[in-house]
């Protein structure tokens, strides 16, 4: 039973998927407007993974929004969350 419970937990975790939307100058680095990741549990973890995948992000100032709300501290993520990478706005 215990093994089964562990297996189910693992299975559930591995199904957790988040979408990352990319905007502005960051699209020049990622080459696309949206990315998918699995098993990322927090915005901090996402930040580190992005930096590892795209080292050029180091030089870019950007904010993250989780489900359209800008966050200013490490935030836990849930399955199907949408995270946006927002470089400085330049509308108008």
């Amino acid at each position, binding site marked *: 039973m215990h093994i089964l419970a562990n297996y189910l937990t693992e299975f559930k975790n591995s199904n957790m998927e988040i979408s990352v939307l990319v905007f*502005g100058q960051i699209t020049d680095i990622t080459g696309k407007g949206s990315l998918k990741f699995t098993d990322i549990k927090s915005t901090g973890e996402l930040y580190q993974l992005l930096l590892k995948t795209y080292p050029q992000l180091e030089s870019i100032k950007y904010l993250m*929004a989780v489900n359209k709300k800008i966050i200013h501290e490490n935030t836990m993520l849930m399955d199907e969350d949408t995270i946006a990478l*927002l470089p*400085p*706005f330049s*509308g*108008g």
Partner: protein
Amino acid sequence: MESKKKHKVFVEGPISPPFIADAIAKHNSKTNIGAHSLFLGQVRNDRVGEQEVVAIEYTSYQEMADDKFYEIREDAFKKFPLICMHIYHSLGLVKSGEISLFVFTSSVHRKEAIAACEWIVERIKNEVPVWGKEILSNETSQWKLNT
């Protein structure tokens, strides 16, 4: 109340002068209005080295931007005694000399309309997720930075 309407802010391409004239004309029937204030943002042909900006291509995180425009609208009606207000922002390509932002406020007296218009423009510049890519005369591009 006008403030409850979630009107469409984004327009594809430039905002045309006839569209602006028409927006003004539509207010003829609201005879309690004593003052309109309009802000028009025009794409400027900034010099970049040997090149100049010939157009700006606007993109947005549209879902978040729509929420933000709605929030700004609600806040503006709470903060200022406005009779009505309208915001239009371009997406896609807008050539230099063309209009990409149109903010239109109306009130009984001038001071409220003018103050609200400025306040709304500043909030749009600071808070709405829109990005401008400047297209230069040699067909290269660079990301616009708001000053």
